[in-house]
């Protein structure tokens, strides 16, 4: 029941006043445990009686297949790829996130604009330009950034995949011909962009080097606070509404 706003610009045709749900974004590199945590949080929230909607990047039907094709061929310039991602993001925001928030859902976003911004900046886009493109994004009620040491990240990555992913290794960035070296450098660069954004976008850091259960309890505690806060605001608004009637 929290009032929603955006990072500056209002998207045409979206009524932010009617969005009573709660938006929670979970950021962090692959293998930091984002999806595991989102699955656990969904279960916990549903047990508590909250309706949950999960959204992620590149899941929209509008440009999803075209993005996959483009990435396979690696033929788009960083700016074009960045705008493609932005299209996909706003398609999801307007067609999935907004309706879910309007219906009062807790929306768990498996990554949000920050990953897209960091990726674009690492590839040479001007930070101000990137920020302006995403200035119509809804500000989440909380953003949790899962931090993990590089050595743990490497270990977890190999445990679950046995090989490195081309894009998560930033192989298109020309950092190194060696995949492992490129992965390490790319992840460092992304992380450094996240730390640069941390204050401006109010990221809450979550130490993801810990066990799944410990991180889960930590997140539950912090999300509970967000929900309590939203509840209070909502209750106040309802009572105010009654008085004015």
């Amino acid at each position, binding site marked *: 029941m929290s009032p929603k706003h955006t990072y500056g*610009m209002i998207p*045409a045709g979206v009524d932010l006043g009617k969005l009573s749900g709660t938006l929670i974004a979970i950021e962090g590199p692959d293998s930091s445990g984002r999806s595991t945590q989102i699955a656990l949080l969904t279960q916990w929230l549903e047990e508590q009686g909250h309706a949950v909607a999960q959204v992620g990047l590149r899941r929209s039907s509008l440009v999803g297949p075209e993005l996959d094709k483009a990435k396979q061929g690696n033929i788009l*310039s960083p*700016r*074009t790829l960045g705008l493609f991602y*932005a299209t996909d993001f706003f398609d999801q925001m307007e067609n999935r996130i907004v309706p879910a928030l309007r219906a009062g859902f807790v929306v768990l976003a498996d990554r949000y604009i920050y990953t897209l911004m960091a990726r674009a900046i690492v590839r*040479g886009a001007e930070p101000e330009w990137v920020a*302006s493109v995403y200035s119509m994004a809804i500000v989440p009620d909380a953003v949790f950034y899962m931090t993990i040491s590089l050595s743990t990240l490497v270990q977890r990555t190999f445990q679950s995949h046995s090989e490195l992913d081309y894009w998560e290794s930033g192989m298109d960035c020309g950092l190194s011909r060696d995949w492992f070296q490129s992965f390490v450098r790319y992840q460092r660069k992304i992380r450094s962009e996240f730390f640069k954004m941390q204050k401006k976008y109010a990221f809450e850091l979550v130490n993801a080097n810990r066990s799944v259960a410990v991180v889960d309890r930590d997140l539950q505690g912090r999300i509970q606070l967000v929900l309590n806060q939203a509840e209070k605001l909502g209750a106040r608004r309802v009572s105010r509404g009654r008085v004015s009637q």
Partner: protein
Amino acid sequence: MTRAMEEKLPGKLIAVEGLDGSGKSTQIHLVHQWLQSKGYRVFFSEWNSSVLVREATRKGKKRQLLTPTTFSLIHATDFADRYERQILPLLRAGYLVLCDRYIFTAFARDAVRGCDPAWLRKMYGFARIPDITMLFRLPLAVALERILEGRPQLKYFEAGMDLDLSPDPTESFRIFQGRVLAEYLRMVDEFGFTVVDATQTVHRQQTAVRRLIQDRVDLGFFHKRYIQ
């Protein structure tokens, strides 16, 4: 990407804008023919022509899933692809680049759809302002007549049906085009458009357009014989 804007480019960028039916495509086509026949390094680029993005646009339009924001972004993606792959490299290589519609088409149409003009200008901030932008101006009624007599079957987005202006496609198209024209006129001073009177004969317009280009561009530099 940052450096691109400060760099002085040897090429020249010429864009034409105007409503559908204003005759701008005919005019830029004739300019292209003229410059080619004279042996100049020239390249012609159209709005909305990159293959990759076209598929997504087509799908989105067909299923009417596009909102003003995604409609705008998908065109920006298409433009960025074309700009960074064709237009900018050609300007660097010293070409005359002719554009049938440029970012002002997006500024006009998307603003009518409710997108924030400041957001649009920032998003397209990576694109250079053309050396010459010609706006082919025609009274709304004449433009409408030309379009409506030719193809009575208006497409959904083309008619601005997504704006709920009128349940009748033709009426919706009329209102939509009127608003687009108003947006264009608002940009004349902002971007220094040269307004061409599109009610004149094709030949007379073309004569004026060629003269303008000759006055503003040192064409000799673009001759294929001229080695930079």
